[in-house]
Protein backbone atom coordinates (compact mmCIF):
# COMPACT_ATOMS: atom_id res chain seq x y z
CA UNK A 1 0.00 0.00 0.00
CA UNK A 2 3.01 2.26 0.13
CA UNK A 3 2.80 3.03 -3.59
CA UNK A 4 -0.76 4.27 -3.45
CA UNK A 5 -0.92 8.02 -3.87
CA UNK A 6 -4.16 9.88 -3.54
CA UNK A 7 -4.52 12.85 -5.86
CA UNK A 8 -7.38 14.81 -7.39
CA UNK A 9 -8.35 14.16 -11.02
CA UNK A 10 -7.36 14.33 -13.87
CA UNK A 11 -5.29 11.18 -13.58
CA UNK A 12 -4.67 10.54 -17.27
CA UNK A 13 -2.84 13.35 -19.00
CA UNK A 14 -2.31 13.85 -22.72
CA UNK A 15 0.75 15.45 -24.22
CA UNK A 16 -1.54 17.50 -26.48
CA UNK A 17 -1.52 21.24 -25.83
CA UNK A 18 -3.58 24.06 -27.28
CA UNK A 19 -0.51 25.57 -28.89
CA UNK A 20 0.46 22.18 -30.37
CA UNK A 21 -2.96 21.73 -31.95
CA UNK A 22 -3.01 25.30 -33.26
CA UNK A 23 0.47 24.83 -34.76
CA UNK A 24 -0.83 21.74 -36.59
CA UNK A 25 -3.74 23.79 -37.97
CA UNK A 26 -1.33 26.52 -39.10
CA UNK A 27 0.87 23.92 -40.83
CA UNK A 28 -2.23 22.47 -42.52
CA UNK A 29 -3.17 25.93 -43.82
CA UNK A 30 0.26 26.71 -45.31
CA UNK A 31 -0.27 24.86 -48.65
CA UNK A 32 -3.48 26.83 -49.26
CA UNK A 33 -1.65 30.06 -48.42
CA UNK A 34 1.14 29.28 -50.90
CA UNK A 35 -1.47 28.40 -53.54
CA UNK A 36 -3.31 31.67 -52.93
CA UNK A 37 -0.11 33.71 -53.39
CA UNK A 38 0.48 31.92 -56.71
CA UNK A 39 -3.10 32.51 -57.81
CA UNK A 40 -3.77 36.03 -56.53
CA UNK A 41 -0.33 37.52 -56.02
CA UNK A 42 1.54 38.86 -53.03
CA UNK A 43 -1.45 40.89 -51.84
CA UNK A 44 -2.93 37.59 -50.61
CA UNK A 45 0.09 37.16 -48.33
CA UNK A 46 -0.12 40.81 -47.26
CA UNK A 47 -3.79 40.47 -46.25
CA UNK A 48 -3.05 37.26 -44.36
CA UNK A 49 -0.17 38.97 -42.56
CA UNK A 50 -2.31 41.99 -41.66
CA UNK A 51 -5.10 39.77 -40.33
CA UNK A 52 -2.71 37.67 -38.25
CA UNK A 53 -1.02 40.81 -36.92
CA UNK A 54 -4.30 42.51 -36.02
CA UNK A 55 -5.76 39.41 -34.35
CA UNK A 56 -2.67 38.87 -32.22
CA UNK A 57 -2.50 42.58 -31.40
CA UNK A 58 -6.16 42.75 -30.33
CA UNK A 59 -5.73 39.60 -28.25
CA UNK A 60 -2.66 41.13 -26.59
CA UNK A 61 -4.35 44.49 -25.98
CA UNK A 62 -7.41 42.81 -24.47
CA UNK A 63 -5.20 40.94 -22.01
CA UNK A 64 -3.40 44.19 -21.12
CA UNK A 65 -6.53 46.34 -20.74
CA UNK A 66 -8.54 43.74 -18.82
CA UNK A 67 -5.47 42.81 -16.75
CA UNK A 68 -5.79 39.15 -17.70
CA UNK A 69 -3.10 36.66 -18.61
CA UNK A 70 -2.55 37.04 -22.34
CA UNK A 71 -3.38 34.04 -24.53
CA UNK A 72 -1.39 34.99 -27.62
CA UNK A 73 1.08 32.22 -26.80
CA UNK A 74 -1.41 29.50 -27.75
CA UNK A 75 -1.49 30.65 -31.41
CA UNK A 76 -5.30 30.56 -31.52
CA UNK A 77 -5.36 34.21 -32.59
CA UNK A 78 -2.95 33.38 -35.40
CA UNK A 79 -5.31 30.65 -36.64
CA UNK A 80 -8.28 33.04 -36.43
CA UNK A 81 -6.30 35.63 -38.42
CA UNK A 82 -5.37 33.14 -41.16
CA UNK A 83 -8.92 31.78 -41.42
CA UNK A 84 -10.44 35.26 -41.55
CA UNK A 85 -7.99 36.30 -44.28
CA UNK A 86 -8.80 33.12 -46.22
CA UNK A 87 -12.45 34.23 -46.21
CA UNK A 88 -11.78 37.62 -47.82
CA UNK A 89 -11.41 38.61 -51.47
CA UNK A 90 -7.90 39.67 -52.41
CA UNK A 91 -8.96 43.23 -53.33
CA UNK A 92 -10.33 44.03 -49.84
CA UNK A 93 -9.03 47.33 -48.36
CA UNK A 94 -6.72 46.69 -45.42
CA UNK A 95 -8.65 48.85 -42.94
CA UNK A 96 -11.68 46.60 -43.43
CA UNK A 97 -9.51 43.65 -42.36
CA UNK A 98 -8.78 45.52 -39.12
CA UNK A 99 -12.53 45.95 -38.48
CA UNK A 100 -13.11 42.25 -39.18
CA UNK A 101 -10.28 41.22 -36.84
CA UNK A 102 -11.65 43.49 -34.12
CA UNK A 103 -15.04 41.78 -34.29
CA UNK A 104 -13.54 38.31 -34.51
CA UNK A 105 -11.19 38.64 -31.55
CA UNK A 106 -12.74 41.24 -29.25
CA UNK A 107 -16.47 40.80 -29.80
CA UNK A 108 -16.90 37.15 -30.74
CA UNK A 109 -14.04 35.65 -28.76
CA UNK A 110 -13.06 37.82 -25.78
CA UNK A 111 -16.49 39.26 -24.88
CA UNK A 112 -17.67 35.70 -24.35
CA UNK A 113 -14.70 34.64 -22.25
CA UNK A 114 -11.78 34.01 -24.59
CA UNK A 115 -10.51 30.76 -26.03
CA UNK A 116 -12.86 27.82 -25.57
CA UNK A 117 -15.78 30.07 -24.61
CA UNK A 118 -16.66 31.67 -27.93
CA UNK A 119 -20.20 30.79 -29.01
CA UNK A 120 -19.49 30.94 -32.74
CA UNK A 121 -16.33 30.59 -34.79
CA UNK A 122 -14.52 33.97 -34.47
CA UNK A 123 -13.27 33.98 -38.07
CA UNK A 124 -16.76 33.36 -39.43
CA UNK A 125 -18.22 35.97 -37.08
CA UNK A 126 -15.71 38.50 -38.40
CA UNK A 127 -16.38 37.53 -41.99
CA UNK A 128 -20.15 37.90 -41.64
CA UNK A 129 -19.81 41.31 -40.00
CA UNK A 130 -17.66 42.38 -42.94
CA UNK A 131 -20.04 40.81 -45.46
CA UNK A 132 -23.08 42.71 -44.19
CA UNK A 133 -21.10 45.92 -43.65
CA UNK A 134 -19.03 46.10 -46.83
CA UNK A 135 -21.09 44.02 -49.22
CA UNK A 136 -19.64 45.48 -52.42
CA UNK A 137 -15.99 45.23 -51.35
CA UNK A 138 -16.58 41.72 -50.02
CA UNK A 139 -17.99 40.46 -53.33
CA UNK A 140 -15.49 42.02 -55.75
CA UNK A 141 -13.68 39.00 -57.13
CA UNK A 142 -10.32 39.30 -58.84
CA UNK A 143 -9.61 37.13 -61.85
CA UNK A 144 -7.02 34.45 -61.02
CA UNK A 145 -3.43 34.65 -62.31
CA UNK A 146 -3.84 38.08 -63.97
CA UNK A 147 -1.33 39.62 -61.53
CA UNK A 148 1.44 37.61 -63.23
CA UNK A 149 0.68 39.34 -66.52
CA UNK A 150 0.97 42.71 -64.81
CA UNK A 151 -2.61 43.66 -65.63
CA UNK A 152 -4.44 45.68 -63.03
CA UNK A 153 -7.01 43.55 -61.20
CA UNK A 154 -9.75 42.49 -63.59
CA UNK A 155 -12.93 41.37 -61.86
CA UNK A 156 -14.72 38.13 -62.50
CA UNK A 157 -17.75 36.18 -61.33
CA UNK A 158 -17.33 33.29 -58.92
CA UNK A 159 -18.30 29.82 -60.18
CA UNK A 160 -21.10 29.83 -57.60
CA UNK A 161 -22.83 32.88 -59.02
CA UNK A 162 -22.52 31.32 -62.49
CA UNK A 163 -24.01 28.09 -61.13
CA UNK A 164 -26.91 30.12 -59.75
CA UNK A 165 -28.28 30.30 -63.30
CA UNK A 166 -28.20 26.50 -63.74
CA UNK A 167 -31.15 25.27 -65.79
CA UNK A 168 -30.14 21.71 -66.67
CA UNK A 169 -27.03 22.64 -68.69
CA UNK A 170 -23.79 24.00 -67.29
CA UNK A 171 -22.75 27.46 -68.49
CA UNK A 172 -19.70 27.55 -70.78
CA UNK A 173 -18.21 30.40 -68.73
CA UNK A 174 -17.38 28.01 -65.87
CA UNK A 175 -13.72 27.09 -65.40
CA UNK A 176 -12.89 23.44 -66.07
CA UNK A 177 -13.16 20.97 -63.19
CA UNK A 178 -9.34 20.66 -63.16
CA UNK A 179 -9.04 24.42 -62.75
CA UNK A 180 -11.61 24.25 -59.96
CA UNK A 181 -9.50 21.62 -58.20
CA UNK A 182 -6.22 23.53 -58.39
CA UNK A 183 -7.90 26.86 -57.72
CA UNK A 184 -7.72 28.85 -60.95
CA UNK A 185 -11.06 30.56 -60.35
CA UNK A 186 -12.53 33.65 -58.72
CA UNK A 187 -13.16 33.52 -54.99
CA UNK A 188 -11.80 34.29 -51.54
CA UNK A 189 -8.05 34.10 -50.87
CA UNK A 190 -7.96 30.76 -49.14
CA UNK A 191 -10.96 28.93 -50.52
CA UNK A 192 -9.95 28.57 -54.18
CA UNK A 193 -7.31 25.81 -54.15
CA UNK A 194 -9.31 22.71 -53.21
CA UNK A 195 -6.29 20.44 -53.62
CA UNK A 196 -4.17 22.35 -51.06
CA UNK A 197 -7.09 22.50 -48.62
CA UNK A 198 -7.70 18.76 -48.97
CA UNK A 199 -4.00 18.10 -48.33
CA UNK A 200 -4.22 20.23 -45.17
CA UNK A 201 -7.41 18.44 -44.11
CA UNK A 202 -5.83 15.01 -44.57
CA UNK A 203 -2.84 16.18 -42.52
CA UNK A 204 -5.12 17.29 -39.68
CA UNK A 205 -6.98 13.97 -39.74
CA UNK A 206 -3.71 12.02 -39.82
CA UNK A 207 -2.43 14.04 -36.85
CA UNK A 208 -5.76 13.31 -35.10
CA UNK A 209 -6.39 17.04 -34.63
CA UNK A 210 -9.82 16.70 -36.24
CA UNK A 211 -12.07 13.70 -36.74
CA UNK A 212 -13.22 13.10 -40.32
CA UNK A 213 -16.90 12.86 -39.39
CA UNK A 214 -17.77 16.58 -39.66
CA UNK A 215 -16.10 17.30 -43.03
CA UNK A 216 -17.38 14.05 -44.57
CA UNK A 217 -20.98 14.51 -43.38
CA UNK A 218 -20.97 18.22 -44.31
CA UNK A 219 -19.66 17.72 -47.85
CA UNK A 220 -21.63 14.47 -48.25
CA UNK A 221 -24.92 16.16 -47.36
CA UNK A 222 -24.26 18.96 -49.85
CA UNK A 223 -23.38 16.35 -52.52
CA UNK A 224 -26.56 14.34 -51.94
CA UNK A 225 -28.83 17.38 -51.98
CA UNK A 226 -27.14 18.79 -55.11
CA UNK A 227 -27.49 15.41 -56.86
CA UNK A 228 -31.19 15.33 -56.09
CA UNK A 229 -31.70 18.99 -57.03
CA UNK A 230 -29.97 18.56 -60.39
CA UNK A 231 -31.69 15.21 -61.06
CA UNK A 232 -28.44 13.25 -61.01
CA UNK A 233 -26.08 15.69 -62.77
CA UNK A 234 -22.67 14.54 -61.47
CA UNK A 235 -20.77 17.43 -63.06
CA UNK A 236 -23.03 20.02 -61.41
CA UNK A 237 -22.54 18.30 -58.06
CA UNK A 238 -18.76 18.28 -58.49
CA UNK A 239 -18.80 22.02 -59.27
CA UNK A 240 -20.93 22.67 -56.20
CA UNK A 241 -18.51 20.79 -53.93
CA UNK A 242 -15.40 22.46 -55.32
CA UNK A 243 -16.79 26.00 -55.44
CA UNK A 244 -17.30 28.53 -52.69
CA UNK A 245 -15.83 27.94 -49.26
CA UNK A 246 -17.28 24.46 -48.73
CA UNK A 247 -13.98 22.56 -48.38
CA UNK A 248 -12.33 25.31 -46.32
CA UNK A 249 -15.40 25.56 -44.09
CA UNK A 250 -15.94 21.82 -43.70
CA UNK A 251 -12.35 20.96 -42.76
CA UNK A 252 -11.13 24.05 -40.93
CA UNK A 253 -14.05 26.02 -39.54
CA UNK A 254 -16.92 23.62 -38.81
CA UNK A 255 -14.44 21.48 -36.86
CA UNK A 256 -13.51 24.22 -34.36
CA UNK A 257 -13.49 22.49 -30.95
CA UNK A 258 -15.41 24.97 -28.85
CA UNK A 259 -18.18 25.47 -31.41
CA UNK A 260 -18.83 21.87 -32.52
CA UNK A 261 -20.46 19.02 -30.57
CA UNK A 262 -18.38 16.51 -28.60
CA UNK A 263 -20.12 13.21 -29.33
CA UNK A 264 -20.08 11.30 -32.62
CA UNK A 265 -23.81 11.60 -33.26
CA UNK A 266 -23.75 15.22 -32.19
CA UNK A 267 -21.10 15.87 -34.85
CA UNK A 268 -23.24 14.03 -37.44
CA UNK A 269 -26.31 16.16 -36.66
CA UNK A 270 -24.18 19.32 -36.68
CA UNK A 271 -22.52 18.53 -40.02
CA UNK A 272 -25.71 17.39 -41.75
CA UNK A 273 -27.40 20.58 -40.55
CA UNK A 274 -24.54 22.64 -42.01
CA UNK A 275 -24.88 20.77 -45.30
CA UNK A 276 -28.63 21.28 -45.51
CA UNK A 277 -28.45 25.01 -44.74
CA UNK A 278 -25.57 25.52 -47.19
CA UNK A 279 -27.48 23.75 -49.96
CA UNK A 280 -30.74 25.55 -49.29
CA UNK A 281 -28.99 28.94 -49.36
CA UNK A 282 -27.08 28.06 -52.53
CA UNK A 283 -30.15 26.73 -54.34
CA UNK A 284 -32.96 29.00 -53.19
CA UNK A 285 -31.65 32.15 -51.49
CA UNK A 286 -30.47 35.39 -53.07
CA UNK A 287 -26.99 34.92 -51.65
CA UNK A 288 -24.63 32.90 -53.81
CA UNK A 289 -22.77 31.34 -50.87
CA UNK A 290 -24.11 29.83 -47.67
CA UNK A 291 -21.21 28.02 -45.98
CA UNK A 292 -20.41 30.73 -43.43
CA UNK A 293 -24.07 31.31 -42.54
CA UNK A 294 -24.71 27.57 -42.21
CA UNK A 295 -21.76 27.12 -39.85
CA UNK A 296 -22.71 30.12 -37.71
CA UNK A 297 -26.34 28.95 -37.41
CA UNK A 298 -25.28 25.43 -36.44
CA UNK A 299 -22.68 26.89 -34.01
CA UNK A 300 -25.52 28.59 -32.18
CA UNK A 301 -27.48 25.32 -32.08
CA UNK A 302 -24.56 23.31 -30.66
CA UNK A 303 -25.64 23.54 -26.97
CA UNK A 304 -29.02 22.07 -27.94
CA UNK A 305 -27.40 19.31 -30.01
CA UNK A 306 -25.19 18.52 -27.02
CA UNK A 307 -28.24 18.32 -24.78
CA UNK A 308 -29.98 15.71 -26.92
CA UNK A 309 -26.87 13.63 -27.65
CA UNK A 310 -25.44 13.60 -24.12
CA UNK A 311 -24.27 10.06 -23.33
CA UNK A 312 -25.72 8.40 -20.25
CA UNK A 313 -23.09 8.11 -17.51
CA UNK A 314 -22.65 4.61 -16.11
CA UNK A 315 -25.32 3.92 -13.52
CA UNK A 316 -27.43 7.00 -14.19
CA UNK A 317 -30.56 4.96 -15.04
CA UNK A 318 -30.77 3.61 -11.51
CA UNK A 319 -30.46 7.05 -9.99
CA UNK A 320 -33.36 8.36 -12.08
CA UNK A 321 -35.61 5.53 -10.88
CA UNK A 322 -34.73 6.30 -7.30
CA UNK A 323 -35.62 9.93 -7.81
CA UNK A 324 -39.00 8.98 -9.28
CA UNK A 325 -39.71 6.73 -6.34
CA UNK A 326 -38.83 9.53 -3.98
CA UNK A 327 -41.15 11.89 -5.81
CA UNK A 328 -43.95 9.32 -5.73
Amino acid sequence: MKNLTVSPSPHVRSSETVSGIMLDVIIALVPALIASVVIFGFRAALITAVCIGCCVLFEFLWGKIMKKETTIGDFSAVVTGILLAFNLPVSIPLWMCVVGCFFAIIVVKQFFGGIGQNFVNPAIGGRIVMLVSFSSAMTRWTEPLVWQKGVDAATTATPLSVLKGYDGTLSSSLPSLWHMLIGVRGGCIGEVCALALLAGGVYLIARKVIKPVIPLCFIGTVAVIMLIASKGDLEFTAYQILSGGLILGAFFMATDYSTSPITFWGKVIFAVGCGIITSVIRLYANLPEGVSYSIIIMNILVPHIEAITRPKPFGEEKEKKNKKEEAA
Partner: protein
Amino acid sequence: MADAKKRSLGKEFTKGLVKENPVLRLVLGTCPTLAVTTSVTNAIGMGIAATIVLVCSNIVISALRKLIPDKVRIPAYIVIIASFVTIVQMLVKAFVPALNTALGAFLPLIVVNCIILGRAEAFASKNTVLYSAVDGLGMGVGFTAALCLMGTIREVLGAGTFLNGIQDLLILFGDNVLNGWNGFDLNSGLEAAGLQPITLFILPAGGFFVFGILIALANKIAEGSGKPKAQLNGCEHCPMAGSCTKLAQENKSKEAEA
Protein backbone atom coordinates in the same frame (compact mmCIF):
# COMPACT_ATOMS: atom_id res chain seq x y z
CA MET B 1 -43.90 56.40 0.59
CA ALA B 2 -44.08 58.76 3.51
CA ASP B 3 -40.63 60.08 2.79
CA ALA B 4 -41.61 60.86 -0.80
CA LYS B 5 -42.61 64.37 0.13
CA LYS B 6 -39.25 65.04 1.68
CA ARG B 7 -37.38 64.28 -1.54
CA SER B 8 -36.58 67.31 -3.61
CA LEU B 9 -38.15 67.82 -7.02
CA GLY B 10 -34.71 68.26 -8.53
CA LYS B 11 -33.68 64.77 -7.39
CA GLU B 12 -36.83 63.25 -8.89
CA PHE B 13 -35.89 64.84 -12.20
CA THR B 14 -32.19 63.97 -12.29
CA LYS B 15 -32.55 60.34 -11.20
CA GLY B 16 -34.10 59.54 -14.61
CA LEU B 17 -31.13 61.01 -16.45
CA VAL B 18 -28.32 58.85 -15.08
CA LYS B 19 -28.95 56.90 -11.89
CA GLU B 20 -32.18 55.27 -13.01
CA ASN B 21 -31.88 55.87 -16.74
CA PRO B 22 -34.83 53.86 -18.13
CA VAL B 23 -32.91 52.40 -21.07
CA LEU B 24 -29.44 51.80 -19.72
CA ARG B 25 -30.14 51.14 -16.03
CA LEU B 26 -33.69 49.81 -15.80
CA VAL B 27 -33.48 48.10 -19.24
CA LEU B 28 -37.00 49.22 -20.15
CA GLY B 29 -38.38 50.23 -23.55
CA THR B 30 -35.76 48.21 -25.42
CA CYS B 31 -37.98 47.59 -28.44
CA PRO B 32 -38.24 51.22 -29.65
CA THR B 33 -34.65 51.77 -28.51
CA LEU B 34 -33.37 49.13 -30.91
CA ALA B 35 -35.80 49.91 -33.70
CA VAL B 36 -35.69 53.69 -34.13
CA THR B 37 -32.09 54.53 -33.28
CA THR B 38 -30.87 54.11 -36.86
CA SER B 39 -30.69 57.91 -37.04
CA VAL B 40 -30.47 60.73 -34.51
CA THR B 41 -33.45 62.49 -36.07
CA ASN B 42 -35.67 59.45 -35.44
CA ALA B 43 -34.27 59.12 -31.93
CA ILE B 44 -35.10 62.74 -31.07
CA GLY B 45 -38.60 62.41 -32.55
CA MET B 46 -39.31 59.19 -30.72
CA GLY B 47 -37.89 60.56 -27.47
CA ILE B 48 -40.01 63.72 -27.58
CA ALA B 49 -43.19 61.82 -28.46
CA ALA B 50 -42.63 59.31 -25.64
CA THR B 51 -41.78 62.09 -23.18
CA ILE B 52 -45.03 63.94 -23.91
CA VAL B 53 -47.05 60.75 -23.39
CA LEU B 54 -45.06 59.90 -20.26
CA VAL B 55 -45.58 63.28 -18.58
CA CYS B 56 -49.28 63.49 -19.48
CA SER B 57 -50.11 59.92 -18.47
CA ASN B 58 -48.12 60.24 -15.23
CA ILE B 59 -50.10 63.39 -14.33
CA VAL B 60 -53.51 61.84 -15.06
CA ILE B 61 -52.75 58.50 -13.43
CA SER B 62 -51.39 60.23 -10.36
CA ALA B 63 -54.47 62.45 -10.16
CA LEU B 64 -56.76 59.43 -10.44
CA ARG B 65 -54.68 57.11 -8.25
CA LYS B 66 -57.21 57.04 -5.43
CA LEU B 67 -60.16 56.46 -7.78
CA ILE B 68 -58.76 53.58 -9.83
CA PRO B 69 -59.57 50.24 -8.15
CA ASP B 70 -56.46 48.13 -7.59
CA LYS B 71 -57.77 45.10 -9.48
CA VAL B 72 -58.36 46.89 -12.79
CA ARG B 73 -55.49 49.36 -12.55
CA ILE B 74 -53.53 47.98 -15.53
CA PRO B 75 -56.46 48.26 -18.02
CA ALA B 76 -57.19 51.73 -16.63
CA TYR B 77 -53.56 52.80 -17.12
CA ILE B 78 -53.56 51.40 -20.67
CA VAL B 79 -56.71 53.36 -21.55
CA ILE B 80 -55.17 56.59 -20.25
CA ILE B 81 -51.83 55.98 -21.99
CA ALA B 82 -53.54 54.95 -25.25
CA SER B 83 -55.58 58.17 -25.28
CA PHE B 84 -52.44 60.29 -25.07
CA VAL B 85 -50.65 58.19 -27.67
CA THR B 86 -53.57 58.70 -30.05
CA ILE B 87 -53.43 62.45 -29.48
CA VAL B 88 -49.66 62.54 -30.01
CA GLN B 89 -49.89 60.44 -33.13
CA MET B 90 -52.54 62.75 -34.63
CA LEU B 91 -50.38 65.78 -33.82
CA VAL B 92 -47.32 64.15 -35.39
CA LYS B 93 -49.31 63.24 -38.50
CA ALA B 94 -50.53 66.80 -38.80
CA PHE B 95 -47.33 68.74 -38.08
CA VAL B 96 -44.34 66.42 -38.74
CA PRO B 97 -45.69 63.89 -41.27
CA ALA B 98 -42.20 62.71 -42.29
CA LEU B 99 -41.53 61.58 -38.70
CA ASN B 100 -44.75 59.58 -38.73
CA THR B 101 -43.52 57.73 -41.84
CA ALA B 102 -40.05 57.20 -40.37
CA LEU B 103 -41.25 55.83 -37.03
CA GLY B 104 -44.02 53.74 -38.60
CA ALA B 105 -45.59 51.25 -36.21
CA PHE B 106 -43.35 52.36 -33.32
CA LEU B 107 -45.31 55.56 -32.80
CA PRO B 108 -48.63 53.85 -31.88
CA LEU B 109 -46.61 51.20 -30.06
CA ILE B 110 -45.68 53.78 -27.41
CA VAL B 111 -48.91 52.49 -25.79
CA VAL B 112 -47.14 49.32 -24.74
CA ASN B 113 -43.79 50.98 -23.99
CA CYS B 114 -42.59 49.46 -20.71
CA ILE B 115 -41.20 52.77 -19.48
CA ILE B 116 -44.60 54.46 -19.46
CA LEU B 117 -46.47 51.57 -17.88
CA GLY B 118 -43.53 50.98 -15.55
CA ARG B 119 -43.53 54.57 -14.27
CA ALA B 120 -47.32 54.50 -13.89
CA GLU B 121 -47.09 51.35 -11.81
CA ALA B 122 -43.94 52.16 -9.86
CA PHE B 123 -44.28 55.89 -9.34
CA ALA B 124 -47.40 57.74 -10.49
CA SER B 125 -49.78 55.38 -8.67
CA LYS B 126 -48.09 56.17 -5.36
CA ASN B 127 -47.05 59.82 -5.60
CA THR B 128 -48.60 63.25 -5.95
CA VAL B 129 -49.27 64.94 -9.26
CA LEU B 130 -46.32 67.34 -9.16
CA TYR B 131 -43.77 64.65 -8.28
CA SER B 132 -45.21 62.33 -10.93
CA ALA B 133 -44.96 64.99 -13.61
CA VAL B 134 -41.33 65.69 -12.72
CA ASP B 135 -40.56 61.96 -12.60
CA GLY B 136 -42.13 61.54 -16.05
CA LEU B 137 -40.16 64.46 -17.44
CA GLY B 138 -36.89 63.15 -16.00
CA MET B 139 -37.49 59.65 -17.30
CA GLY B 140 -38.54 61.03 -20.69
CA VAL B 141 -35.41 63.17 -20.98
CA GLY B 142 -33.29 60.20 -19.87
CA PHE B 143 -34.97 58.03 -22.51
CA THR B 144 -34.39 60.67 -25.19
CA ALA B 145 -30.76 61.10 -24.15
CA ALA B 146 -30.11 57.34 -24.30
CA LEU B 147 -31.81 57.13 -27.70
CA CYS B 148 -29.73 60.06 -28.99
CA LEU B 149 -26.52 58.47 -27.71
CA MET B 150 -27.33 55.20 -29.48
CA GLY B 151 -28.59 57.02 -32.55
CA THR B 152 -25.38 59.06 -32.79
CA ILE B 153 -23.13 56.02 -32.57
CA ARG B 154 -25.20 54.03 -35.04
CA GLU B 155 -25.76 56.84 -37.56
CA VAL B 156 -22.16 58.08 -37.62
CA LEU B 157 -20.58 54.62 -37.81
CA GLY B 158 -23.27 52.95 -39.90
CA ALA B 159 -24.37 55.60 -42.37
CA GLY B 160 -21.62 58.23 -42.21
CA THR B 161 -24.10 61.01 -41.45
CA PHE B 162 -25.14 62.97 -38.36
CA LEU B 163 -28.59 64.52 -37.82
CA ASN B 164 -29.47 63.53 -41.37
CA GLY B 165 -33.04 64.53 -42.28
CA ILE B 166 -33.28 66.99 -39.38
CA GLN B 167 -35.50 69.18 -41.58
CA ASP B 168 -38.25 66.59 -41.02
CA LEU B 169 -38.34 67.76 -37.40
CA LEU B 170 -37.46 71.42 -37.98
CA ILE B 171 -40.54 71.74 -40.20
CA LEU B 172 -42.33 72.32 -36.89
CA PHE B 173 -40.80 75.80 -36.85
CA GLY B 174 -41.57 76.58 -40.46
CA ASP B 175 -40.06 75.93 -43.89
CA ASN B 176 -36.33 76.33 -44.51
CA VAL B 177 -35.25 76.81 -40.89
CA LEU B 178 -31.43 77.18 -40.64
CA ASN B 179 -31.33 77.76 -44.41
CA GLY B 180 -32.56 74.24 -45.10
CA TRP B 181 -29.57 72.67 -43.32
CA ASN B 182 -30.18 68.93 -43.31
CA GLY B 183 -27.48 67.48 -41.08
CA PHE B 184 -23.83 66.60 -41.61
CA ASP B 185 -22.77 64.19 -44.35
CA LEU B 186 -19.33 62.72 -43.71
CA ASN B 187 -19.44 60.32 -46.65
CA SER B 188 -17.52 62.44 -49.14
CA GLY B 189 -14.75 62.99 -46.58
CA LEU B 190 -14.68 59.28 -45.76
CA GLU B 191 -14.50 58.36 -49.43
CA ALA B 192 -11.56 60.71 -49.95
CA ALA B 193 -9.77 58.88 -47.13
CA GLY B 194 -10.62 55.52 -48.70
CA LEU B 195 -13.07 54.65 -45.93
CA GLN B 196 -16.75 53.82 -45.87
CA PRO B 197 -19.39 53.46 -43.14
CA ILE B 198 -19.79 50.08 -41.40
CA THR B 199 -23.33 49.22 -42.54
CA LEU B 200 -23.72 46.68 -39.74
CA PHE B 201 -24.39 49.47 -37.24
CA ILE B 202 -27.66 50.55 -38.83
CA LEU B 203 -28.84 46.95 -39.17
CA PRO B 204 -30.71 45.32 -36.26
CA ALA B 205 -27.64 43.28 -35.29
CA GLY B 206 -25.65 46.49 -34.87
CA GLY B 207 -28.45 47.89 -32.69
CA PHE B 208 -28.16 44.98 -30.28
CA PHE B 209 -24.38 45.32 -30.35
CA VAL B 210 -24.35 49.04 -29.47
CA PHE B 211 -27.07 48.50 -26.85
CA GLY B 212 -25.09 45.71 -25.20
CA ILE B 213 -21.89 47.76 -25.15
CA LEU B 214 -23.68 50.78 -23.64
CA ILE B 215 -25.31 48.67 -20.90
CA ALA B 216 -21.93 47.13 -20.16
CA LEU B 217 -20.39 50.60 -19.86
CA ALA B 218 -23.27 51.80 -17.66
CA ASN B 219 -22.77 48.73 -15.45
CA LYS B 220 -19.06 49.42 -15.25
CA ILE B 221 -19.73 52.99 -14.14
CA ALA B 222 -22.41 51.81 -11.67
CA GLU B 223 -20.01 49.22 -10.25
CA GLY B 224 -17.41 51.92 -9.72
CA SER B 225 -19.86 53.94 -7.63
CA GLY B 226 -21.09 50.90 -5.70
CA LYS B 227 -24.56 50.64 -7.27
CA PRO B 228 -26.19 47.35 -8.37
CA LYS B 229 -25.69 46.26 -11.96
CA ALA B 230 -28.57 46.15 -14.43
CA GLN B 231 -29.04 42.43 -14.93
CA LEU B 232 -31.64 40.34 -16.65
CA ASN B 233 -31.19 37.18 -14.58
CA GLY B 234 -33.83 37.19 -11.90
CA CYS B 235 -36.04 39.96 -10.58
CA GLU B 236 -34.16 40.56 -7.36
CA HIS B 237 -31.25 42.11 -9.27
CA CYS B 238 -33.52 44.65 -10.93
CA PRO B 239 -33.00 48.19 -9.62
CA MET B 240 -36.80 48.47 -9.44
CA ALA B 241 -37.17 45.38 -7.24
CA GLY B 242 -38.07 47.58 -4.27
CA SER B 243 -41.19 48.92 -5.95
CA CYS B 244 -42.18 45.81 -7.94
CA THR B 245 -45.63 44.47 -7.02
CA LYS B 246 -44.91 41.05 -8.52
CA LEU B 247 -41.91 40.60 -6.26
CA ALA B 248 -43.84 41.88 -3.26
CA GLN B 249 -46.60 39.31 -3.86
CA GLU B 250 -44.05 36.54 -4.22
CA ASN B 251 -42.39 37.53 -0.99
CA LYS B 252 -45.79 37.62 0.74
CA SER B 253 -46.72 34.12 -0.42
CA LYS B 254 -43.28 32.91 0.66
CA GLU B 255 -43.85 34.39 4.11
CA ALA B 256 -47.31 32.82 4.27
CA GLU B 257 -45.80 29.44 3.52
CA ALA B 258 -43.16 29.84 6.15
